[in-house]
């Protein structure tokens, strides 16, 4: 980008809502920064973008972006997004939320949206804990990690999110950490421009709670860790990318395939059965 003398991010933020609520060193701010740059690069008219969030620290993203934005209920941004997309296929409908929101309470919606290839893009910030409520164990928390509700260590198996999204039908699956800002931004651009259900996991530090409680250092320490322990394996078998406490982090673009979106599939089916009686519904997809 040229002419960097004004902050390119500001026009997309609700500056009248600053300062934001996030802690110093929190990874969510980096995610917002990457997203805004991605939106800029994607060439999409921001007026045609809607942001949907659920509840939690990441759920507050919708409120800070100067776009049509919806801060919905806990776990439900995905079905809200499906409803909006189906109503207005020409819009880009993007979901930003945390792993507790999207994968625990909202897990059923995640797998069904992936299955039916709802044409929405899900950016899931995974910080391994329910940060907003003070650090309870989350559905991706590594075994042995400490949370307020696992004071002796977590012992139930965490979800491997890329594998979950892949196996339920997502057409685009990537994972990056907040250290990988360029790659993350590129993945966001690709997801925004790709028809179908796209899932990007973003490993992000929560220094205030998760990092501290698990003696993983501050935000900067997290970045050093991500730098040292991440391995980029594009096209990796998602079955193999599960995470462990203090273990390596496999990042990359894992899945990029094509399949009819929900509305395209609907049109194909109805047109074949109903013929001229069926007026194809707009899909918002240009192939």
């Amino acid at each position, binding site marked *: 980008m040229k002419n960097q003398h004004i902050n390119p991010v500001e026009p997309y933020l*609700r500056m*009248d*809502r600053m300062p934001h609520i996030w802690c110093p060193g929190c990874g969510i701010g980096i995610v917002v920064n990457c997203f805004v740059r991605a939106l800029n690069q994607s060439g999409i008219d*921001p*007026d*045609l973008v*809607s942001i*949907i969030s659920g509840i939690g620290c990441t759920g507050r993203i*919708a*409120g800070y972006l*100067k*776009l*049509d*934005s*919806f*801060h*919905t*209920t806990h776990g*439900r941004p995905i*079905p*809200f*997004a*499906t*409803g*909006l*997309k*189906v*109503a*207005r296929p*020409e*819009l880009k409908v993007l979901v930003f939320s945390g792993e507790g929101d999207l994968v625990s309470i909202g897990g*059923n*919606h995640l797998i*069904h949206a992936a299955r*039916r290839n709802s044409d929405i893009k899900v950016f899931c910030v995974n910080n391994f804990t329910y940060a907003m409520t003070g650090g309870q164990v989350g559905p991706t928390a590594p075994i042995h990690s400490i949370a307020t509700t696992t004071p002796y260590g977590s012992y139930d198996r965490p979800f491997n999110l890329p594998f979950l999204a892949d196996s339920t039908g997502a057409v685009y699956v990537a994972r990056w950490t907040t250290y990988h800002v360029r790659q993350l931004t590129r993945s966001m651009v690709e997801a925004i421009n790709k028809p179908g259900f796209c899932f990007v996991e973003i490993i992000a530090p929560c220094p205030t709670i998760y990092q501290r409680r698990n003696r993983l250092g501050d935000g900067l320490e997290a970045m050093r860790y991500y730098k040292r322990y991440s391995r980029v394996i594009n096209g990796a078998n998602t079955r193999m990318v599960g995470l462990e406490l203090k273990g390596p982090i496999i990042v990359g673009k894992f899945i990029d395939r094509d399949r009819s979106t*929900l*509305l395209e599939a*609907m049109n194909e089916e*109805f047109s074949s059965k*109903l013929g001229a*009686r*069926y*007026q194809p*519904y707009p899909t918002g997809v240009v192939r």
Partner: protein
Amino acid sequence: MGADPQGVLTGVHFLDGDHACCEGAIAAGCRAAFGYPITPSTEIVERIALRLPLVGGVFVQMEDEIASSIAIQGAAWGGKKVITVTSGPGMSLMMEHVGLAAMTETPCVFVNVQRGGPSTGLPTLPAQGDMMQARWGSHGDYEIIAISPNSPQECFDLTVHAFNLSERYRVPVLIMMDESVGHMTERVTIPHAEQIEVESRRLPEGPKEEYLPFAPGENLVPPMAPVGEGYRFHVTGLTHNEKGYPVMSPDVQDHLVRRLLDKIRLNAEDIAMVEEDQIQDADVVLVAYGITSRVVLRTLHLAREKGLKVGVFRPVVVWPFPEKRLRELAERVKAFVVVELNYGQVVLEVERIVGGRVPTVLVPHGGGALHNPEDILRVVEEAW
């Protein structure tokens, strides 16, 4: 404004209440629906799935009732008129999103074809046990509108009306059917499109940058901007100011929630819909709604044959309750007999309004069947 003729099946039909409800929704302009099967409401989504694709609409069977009840809200902000359909257990799951719709002033229609409860209860048999849930089932203070049709014809007419109220007040409207009304087949006359009055939400005027999505307009209802047109507004279930931004303060809470209540309470007379039968000279008034309002007509007939001056008062819109009219009646009648397919729900509202001026007697029934009109008559006779 008249209805879009594409969706209107003008003519005389034999339809059950569930199917008539679907036709009402389409006639009202509903073009997006989301649902999940549950007896005895399934026939509504089945017909929606059959009909909507042929009129330019879209239906998605969602993974559960929670998803359905929020997918409609996404579609509503996308500019569509929307509906979801369920019965008791599903309604319990949808309740959080009734609250979200009330808080974010999202026009949407929920249909509850009531069956016996609690829990799985009597899936194939009628009850009216969800009336207080409809009114209070989500947390916090809010107001909704609830309508109780008593025939397939009304399932058509009142579904159109439900959409209109929902659009006018930007509020969730609950159509409180029951298994009997849903599954009874009767003649339904669907008028010509231009004879069907259809309302749509008011859109904002003025510069987009100055738009305040939650500033009260006419009737305390804010105009509603559609997404994708550069307004770049924010909507949240958190307590919010007129700009839509979250503010955690008692003042903003009071300002917002009071308006959400007042836009219904102060317009209660506009929303009220009452049907009365032989009320002029009545000493004892039967109060009933939905299917039960048909059962009490038989009681009325039997009572009049015996020379008893009985009348019927039927709130067609049950919430907000038509308080003013009932209070007028309480000044001159001798007793109210409330008949409902539950163990005492709407009777509490009647008692509150009557305020002890005259006796209020309940004729309860647990559901699974309808009242016997003669049993009701015995209670009426005792009320004398």
